[in-house]
């Protein structure tokens, strides 16, 4: 989906893609968990509907986005599901060239701790 604001094309993720993305996370978040990138594959799978939509006509951007989504990632599964949501928002901002990929990658690493820590410690209580 693309809206025109001030004659500038602004890309926006549709609700359908977000819902598909959430369902993917809910059912497959731990399917290919391993020691190399932990939940990296699951995050790439979760973000694929979003990436497909944002970079529908930009093959190079799509490949770059997939590669960035495959880096090491880990979080808790229920309350930590907010993390892929943040990543989708970051990807939207990257697609609109509002932030650089360095910023989105830094945020991705930064949210691993808070999202998994908060949820995992809640469960212990």
């Amino acid at each position: 989906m693309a809206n025109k604001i001030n004659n500038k094309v602004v890309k926006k993720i549709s609700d359908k893609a977000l819902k598909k993305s959430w369902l993917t996370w809910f059912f497959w978040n731990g399917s290919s968990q391993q020691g190399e990138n932990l939940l990296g594959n699951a995050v790439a799978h979760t973000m694929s509907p979003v990436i497909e939509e944002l970079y529908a006509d930009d093959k190079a951007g799509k490949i770059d986005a997939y590669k960035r989504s495959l880096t090491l990632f880990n979080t808790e599964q229920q309350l930590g599901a907010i993390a892929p949501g943040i990543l989708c928002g970051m990807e939207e901002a990257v697609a609109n060239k509002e932030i650089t990929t360095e910023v989105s990658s830094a945020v991705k690493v930064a949210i691993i701790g808070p999202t998994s820590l908060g949820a995992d410690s809640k469960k212990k209580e």
Partner: protein
Amino acid sequence: MTILQAIIIALFAYLASIGSVVGNTIGWYNLGRPLVASFIVGIVMGNVPVAVTIGLLLQLANLGSVTPGGALSWDLSYATYIGVAGALAFHGGDIAATIALMWVFSTVGGAIGVAMWNMTYGLNLICNRISMKGAEEGNPKKIAFANAGLGNIIGFVCRFIPALIILLTTAVAGSQSGTNIAALIPSWLVTALGVFGGMMAALGMGILLSFLMKKAWHFCLFLFGFILIVYFALNTMAVAVIATIAAVIYYTAITSNGNRRTGEGA
């Protein structure tokens, strides 16, 4: 125990593992908890009361168990499915012997579960190569296959087959040849396993208390609940209501503290 029952339980042992097709929220965090798992085993084996009674001991022993970063110390779901199913297959009316047998089966099941999880953890590295290739081609189907498809095939092979083998070689073989393993265990071992099993439940409560108690005086609240259950013989619902009242009074007391000091409050 029939072969069909063993297959159904092995299937649930896979569904309740980390990263099965039903997702971790339904699988590992619900089907994998001993209370739910023993109930399912009870339905399959046709003896829910005994299944839940012995499953509760496993639940108590593992109250504080979490898996941060996929670091699994004890495979709770595997231990419960194997332990409760194995013990129920030889249940002859003596609950103490069944409990002892449950500890034996669940120890074996839990250890094999951890080994199989570590194997899955290593084998899933194959998925990374495929998903990386998918990313380089910009092909979401390849990434989906790597994560949901291959990840689950590996999980299924590593989980379903060992569970089935354990159940077939012990519970099914034993109940079909008429050998009762429970009768072979000497009575002193039954007593010992019962005592140590009870201590496991205390350990589980201890771990949970170490998370819950932030200050030393919180122990008074725990003791208060303990005497209400043990000496006043109240049921859990009654104690929950008393606890709610105590919590509301406590909250009101600490939030009106500032008013009292300045003399403005009622």
